[in-house]
């Protein structure tokens, strides 16, 4: 049996978590899930082949509580002795697995693309996916996260039974918890979930009006490269890349972005990538499906006008 930690934000399960479940099914026919706090989400998890949901409920687990989530997962691990513990490679998934690894003193292998439980070997991503490591894992139980967007989440309908339990938590487990949420209200398009991202780099300069206009017209989000956030032109929340957000939208338009490893790691899983750059030899071009060589300050107004006309 494979145990999957299912990351959710106040009951909402991200696609990357479903990718983790899909991956787990390739390792073993029986997949059980651990959900900490929120809703058990048995219907959705059943659709993806989960047969049992271990749902941790506790007065202290009203919102995400990292170490307590690790404690709850470790408790199910001890009770059920799975052959592996898997999570989608979300920030929370990696964090909770690391807590479990520390609690059980076992290795944790992050960002895997392949796992062979028999041989205890993995392939895992380094440099944000720009380099693959083949590794032998010396462990009594594989604990691994799955690199985001490595595989697509695929349903495999099953019926999931819910097992409620109250984990035994220490005071230290619940010390670090969310006390508030601030920032933009709902309605803004999240970079990680946007279908379209219009992204700007050094070539854009400080003024992102053109990028914002095109993103607005296509109902998308604004992204940028690290150069742009380091210059203070745009907030860090918009940074796409290895140290920013990793995205996989239907359409990614890279404007004035040369395509350093750091940036490619964040956008190379986009379904369609359009590059607009003055340099036809820029690295971004080898990842592009369509490319325009020229000055974005002249090209974007034409694209905006044509898009506006098409929308009528």
């Amino acid at each position, binding site marked *: 049996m494979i145990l999957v930690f299912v990351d959710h934000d106040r009951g909402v399960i991200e696609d990357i978590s479903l990718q983790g479940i899909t991956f787990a099914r390739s390792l073993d026919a029986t997949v059980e899930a651990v959900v900490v706090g929120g809703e058990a989400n048995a219907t959705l998890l059943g659709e993806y082949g989960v047969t049992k949901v271990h749902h941790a409920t506790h007065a202290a687990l009203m919102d995400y509580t990292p170490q307590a989530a690790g404690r709850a997962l470790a408790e199910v691990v001890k009770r059920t002795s799975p052959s592996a513990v898997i999570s989608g490679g979300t920030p929370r998934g990696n964090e909770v697995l690391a807590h479990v*690894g520390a609690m059980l003193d076992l290795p944790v292998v992050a960002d895997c693309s392949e796992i062979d439980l028999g041989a205890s070997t993995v392939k895992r991503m380094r440099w944000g996916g720009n380099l693959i490591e*083949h590794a032998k894992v010396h462990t009594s139980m594989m604990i691994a996260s799955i690199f985001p967007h490595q595989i697509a989440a695929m349903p495999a309908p099953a019926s999931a039974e819910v097992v409620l339990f109250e984990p035994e938590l220490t005071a230290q487990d619940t010390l670090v918890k969310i006390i508030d949420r601030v920032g933009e209200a709902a309605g803004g398009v999240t970079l990680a979930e946007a279908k379209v991202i219009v992204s700007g780099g050094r070539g854009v300069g400080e003024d992102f009006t053109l990028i914002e206009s095109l993103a607005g017209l296509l109902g998308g989000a604004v992204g940028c490269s690290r150069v742009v956030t380091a210059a203070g032109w745009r907030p860090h929340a918009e940074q796409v890349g290895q140290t920013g957000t990793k995205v996989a939208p239907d359409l990614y338009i890279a404007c004035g972005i040369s395509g350093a490893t750091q940036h490619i790691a964040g956008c190379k899983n986009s379904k369609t990538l359009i590059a607009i750059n003055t340099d036809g030899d820029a690295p971004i071009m080898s990842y592009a499906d*369509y490319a325009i060589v020229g000055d974005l300050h002249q090209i974007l107004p034409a694209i905006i006008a044509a898009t506006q006309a098409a929308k009528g």
Partner: protein
Amino acid sequence: MEVLVCIKRVILAGNTFALNDDHTDIDTRHLGYTLSPHEESAVEAAVRLNEEFGGTTTLLTLGHVDSEEQIRSQMAIGPDRAIVLETDGSEWDPQATANAIIEAIKKEETKFDVIIFGSESADTAGYQTGIRVAHALALPIVTNVKGLKVENGVARCERAVGTMREIYEVPLPAVLTVRDGIAIPRYPSVPGRIKARKKPMDVFPVEKPAAKIEKVKLELPPVKAKGATMLSADADGAQKLVEIFREIGVLS
């Protein structure tokens, strides 16, 4: 406020990697070294804590003694001293790294109020060293911190989730892992660079234990030679793009 920042020297990555002949490592002959972006921001965040509350910042690294170059360049913006856990430069897995750091912290006379890590290293990205250290020292930990404010011995930490920010509060002493963007690193001044050369650096050799995660070899991912379709940089090209928007369903 006593701050410890754990840093790691990584290759200065350009656009592609080349591997050595037996594919066990990156060919570093023509490459320089730097710190992970998360860790450059971590050092800046630490220096700002010292500016606000006094105290000192100590840098700690596990790695080749040549990491001194990256340490000195970071010391130029403020950190006061450094500890090098000296290895032969070969890779250590996350558990081995964490254990060596734990031992080093336990031996320290300084009691650190804040121990900062990058949320993950740019190269091997295990997402766990800081968490393992926190557990071993029985300290609370907040990860992926992108905003930090300390008041009355409590750290208020911001973490991004979607378009929102989560707020965590944690009493010090604590471990934090931080992300690029928590603080934009300042440029070192010339006097800063000169002072950095004289700052104390303790070097302790450490023995490498058997790896739990044992690197066997490296492989470059296949680059999908997409062979981009070129469009003209004019109204005609713009019109073709609109057709593409329609084709892939992002414009109705």
